């Protein structure tokens, strides 16, 4: 078993299914009896065919999806908090201080510039505007987003450009636990390499990472362990 | 109980009103005196003159006047205008009281739209004729709401009007019927006296009574009560002033009326308070 000293995330007997009330109450099971530990310094990659529930698991850990049974214990300020049972306020607190999440898609807000989107999580933690904007600029530069785009709202940007803003925002804060959902899906080779570097640095500073990588090459570079999700569907 | 027969006019009670009505009005007056600036509703009677001609003031005067009173009646400061003459004669005939044009000799003064220049003394009563008693009416047409505002002392919006004045005209442009705060509690309309007269209401030794006949309200400022005109710290209340003095008596301290003297538009400024002007003339000629 994972050393409790370094344990950051413990998923225990987790079950998730969807009930579609407006389609005759049809139940779509996703997974059950799921156990998974992630320790500091690990980058665990979820492996499995499309539709097996990898994204669903990440979203459940993030508090975005509700679960039917089990626990999601996350180390937060020294104690283990169960995300599955946590109140909304607590989940927001976890997301601000402990749990980072890079989703597949950037949620765009009208009128907010790319650099401000990246700076926001830092400012929420109390960092002053100047420093947060500077760090945001560093990240965007690292991800090769042209500077002329920084001050523009990203609604009209390409998928790859939006994804890089999403990544910069996700890595702007040093979260103890990071969830990455297909972070390199829309990127070319050079940018994928930049993401790999970011992930390595994150791991090196002692964070725990749980991710989904479709791209085999990236996965092999960053994964310290694979977690296969085949065959966990309800019978 | 005396009747008007003693006064020489038959068929009328002393001072015209029946005793029950006077009693009712006196009760309202007592309540008004007990709550300075608060508008007390009363059962205003139909008087032998239309609304808008001083029915409220007349009812208050009729309720407080006694045999030994000496009555003065002024209209815009003058004793000799039609209305002042009519009202004075009304009380002379129905109450048989002595009348005067001299402020210093009067015990009871009924006034429309001015306070005499000669300072009043303890024991005198001044009765004001009031058209619209409610200071918040411009802001809030509902009586139910203005009563709540008075009850809760919600007067901030009165300053909104003055703010607007200053924003659009650079100064507060209200020059008569200028709202005041009485005894640090009730917001009051002093009746359409010029703002020049507002300071006279403050700590006045006389009893000040206000009657609105059409609106059926009585209010009062007891002797030696604090009366403060509303203003802003950086736009303090200020009274009117003129470049010249009265053309007749030379006074620089009284409220002056502008009088057109011929068809060419020649004008002169004279004291609005005729009694005051006569006194000063008499002094300078003596």
């Amino acid at each position, binding site marked *: 078993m994972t050393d409790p000293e370094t344990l950051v995330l413990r998923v225990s007997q987790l079950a998730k299914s969807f009930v579609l009330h407006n389609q005759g109450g049809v139940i779509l099971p996703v997974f059950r009896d799921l156990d998974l530990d992630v320790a500091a310094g690990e980058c665990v990659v979820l492996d499995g065919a499309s539709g097996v529930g990898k994204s669903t698991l990440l979203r459940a850990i993030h508090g975005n999806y509700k679960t039917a049974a089990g626990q999601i214990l996350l180390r937060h300020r020294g104690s283990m908090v169960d995300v599955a049972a946590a109140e909304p306020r607590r989940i927001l607190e976890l997301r601000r201080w402990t749990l980072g999440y890079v989703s597949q898609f950037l949620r765009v807000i009208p009128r907010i510039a790319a650099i401000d989107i990246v700076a926001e999580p830092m400012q929420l933690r109390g960092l002053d505007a100047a420093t947060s904007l500077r760090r945001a600029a560093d990240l965007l530069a690292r991800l090769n987003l042209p500077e002329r785009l920084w001050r523009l709202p990203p609604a009209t940007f390409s998928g790859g450009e939006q994804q890089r803003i999403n990544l910069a925002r996700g890595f702007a804060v040093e979260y103890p636990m990071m969830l990455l959902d297909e972070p390199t899906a829309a990127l070319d080779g050079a940018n994928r390499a930049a993401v790999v570097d970011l992930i390595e640095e994150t791991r090196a500073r002692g964070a725990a990472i749980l991710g989904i990588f479709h791209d085999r090459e990236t996965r092999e570079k960053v994964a310290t362990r694979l977690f296969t999700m085949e065959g966990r569907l309800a019978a | 109980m005396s009747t008007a027969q003693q006064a020489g006019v038959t068929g009328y009670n002393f001072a015209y009103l029946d005793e029950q009505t006077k009693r009712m009005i006196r009760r309202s007056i007592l309540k008004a005196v007990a709550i300075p600036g608060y508008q007390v509703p009363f059962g205003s009677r139909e008087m032998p003159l239309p609304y808008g001609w001083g029915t409220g003031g007349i009812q208050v005067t009729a309720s407080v006047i006694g045999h030994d009173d000496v009555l003065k009646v002024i209209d815009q400061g003058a004793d000799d205008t039609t209305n002042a003459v009519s009202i004075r004669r009304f009380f002379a005939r129905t109450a048989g009281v002595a009348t005067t044009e001299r402020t210093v000799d009067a015990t009871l003064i009924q006034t429309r739209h001015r306070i005499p220049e000669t300072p009043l003394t303890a024991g005198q009563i001044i009765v004001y004729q009031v058209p619209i008693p409610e200071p918040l009416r411009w802001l809030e047409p509902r009586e139910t709401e203005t009563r709540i505002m008075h009850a809760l002392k919600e007067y901030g919006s009165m300053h909104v009007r003055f*703010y607007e004045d200053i924003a659009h005209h650079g100064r507060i442009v209200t020059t008569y019927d200028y709202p005041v705060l009485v005894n640090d509690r009730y917001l009051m309309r002093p009746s359409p006296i010029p703002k020049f007269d507002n300071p006279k209401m403050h700590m006045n030794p006389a009893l000040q009574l206000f009657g609105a006949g059409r609106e059926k309200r009585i209010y009062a400022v007891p002797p030696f009560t604090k009366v403060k005109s509303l203003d802003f710290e950086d736009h303090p209340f200020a009274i009117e002033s003129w470049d010249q003095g009265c053309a007749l008596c030379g006074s620089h301290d009284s409220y002056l009326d502008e009088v057109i003297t011929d068809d060419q538009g020649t004008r002169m400024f004279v004291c609005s308070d005729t009694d005051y002007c006569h006194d000063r003339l008499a002094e300078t000629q003596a």
Partner: protein
Amino acid sequence: MSALSATPIDDLPVLSVRGLTKLYGTRVGCRDVDIELWPGEVLGVVGESGSGKTTLLDCLSARLTPSAGTIHYQRRDGRVVELFELSEPARRTLLRTEWGVVRQNPRDGLRLDVSAGANVGERLMAIGARHYGDIRREAVSWLGKVEIDGDRVDDRPTAFSGGMQQRLQIARNLVTNPRLVFMDEPTGGLDVSVQARLLDLIRGLVANLGLSAIIVTHDLAVARLLAHRLMVMRGGVVVETGLTDQVLDDPQHAYTQLLVSSILQV
């Protein structure tokens, strides 16, 4: 993506509502509504017409008297009061100083016959401000915060566009630095680009001023943008409540699922 001021999780709630019910005879306006709202938090109340969300807002903002239930509010000084146990003067004072109510139609929340500056300054004058220059300066400052040009301080609201009127209404409410703001369909009836600007403004103000807010809307996109938590209402009752992104991405109740699946994608 959410905005919260940095408050510790164990603070007392700003607003604590239990069993709030408003009946019109046998007709249910709202029934058995429970709410907890913390400092700096925005609660979205969503539902379609007839859901009871406006009735709820009117009860919470003391515009209507509830038939049953309690509303406890923690004042700026720390004391907790029950809204309808307060005397009317105390309640009215609360509404003027610590609360704000932004109505759907700005004309219901503004004085149309006085200038923008007077509209913003009125609350200050109501709590005793007596320096014209200071009041005007404060008004101009607030107009700036809601992106209305200071030149328009002496203009009447009738000369403003709908979006400007709404922003003026917001300024009028925020001038006394309230702790709690109620908004009823704040972007209702506005053009899309105007909506975007207003939402951005509200988002910024809530974050920067650490306001708590309850926002009633039928527009789920507005709710997702502004609210930390959502309450879904139907037929006068709350059918689902939770984190905004969770309610919208993984709705549990049949009605919520219906609502979410009904949104047209651009």
